[in-house]
């Protein structure tokens, strides 16, 4: 049944776009955060459709797990006033809409003109081993630099969130 992946693609695309629009358009920021989790889960399903199972697992762990929890915590810690009107538009939302729409039109025109030459060849069934080889072989130095970046971000986030009271 060849149409199964197409069906899943349209289903996941509808989920992703609808929940992304809900993230942007809803007025309650807690609802926005929950729809953001739904968007991340939809993107993880798309990765499974693209034969990237390891990336789908990483997406679920990092985005739908860690990043969503961080954002919900930030919402909780910066809550003030009415939660039902906590996610409003700012003064220049019309300009933002025009810019985003123009960018989407440009992207669609540009990618629609391109004729991609797909290389024939089937993807291997499981590519976790290939990803491991790439990380510890060809991309070993960026891998280590990413580790240092994560450490720096962690220390920086702790320092920033702790505040400047220890200065005086």
């Amino acid at each position: 049944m060849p149409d199964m992946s197409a069906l899943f693609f349209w289903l996941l695309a509808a989920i992703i776009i609808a929940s992304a629009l809900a993230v942007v358009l809803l007025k309650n920021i807690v609802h926005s955060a929950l729809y953001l989790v739904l968007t991340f889960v939809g993107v993880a399903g798309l990765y499974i459709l693209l034969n990237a199972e390891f990336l789908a697992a990483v997406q679920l762990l990092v985005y739908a797990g860690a990043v969503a929890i961080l954002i919900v915590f930030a919402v909780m810690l910066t809550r003030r006033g009415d939660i039902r009107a906590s996610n409003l538009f700012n003064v220049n939302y019309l300009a933002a809409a025009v810019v985003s729409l123009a960018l989407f039109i440009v992207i669609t025109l540009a990618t629609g003109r391109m004729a991609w030459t797909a290389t024939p060849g089937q993807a291997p069934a499981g590519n976790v081993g290939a990803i491991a080889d790439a990380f510890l072989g060809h991309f070993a130095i960026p891998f280590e630099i990413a580790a240092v970046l994560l450490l720096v971000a962690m220390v920086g986030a702790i320092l920033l969130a702790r505040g400047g009271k220890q200065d005086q």
Partner: protein
Amino acid sequence: MITLNHYLALGGLLFCIGLFGALAKRNAVAVLMGIELMLNAVNINLVAFNHFLEPARVTGQVFAIFVIVVAAAEVAVGLALVLNIYRRRLDSNVDDLDWLRW
């Protein structure tokens, strides 16, 4: 038949929704949510290129993992900044963060 162009259009649409959220929202946490949507759109493009153009290698997936690493670092530091600003100004409205303006 789903082609590469379908995935690119989906990524472009998601990127533009995220851009609209990052530009048009008043709450700083919502701006960070928009940036996360944009990074996810980029990852969809990278993985789709990997799948359709070079299926035997995993370079696109490796790049997507690096993007996820940078996004995690960015959201941690960004939310710490938002918390710090909120503690000083009791506000997370990006329209009011204008004390660098002259």
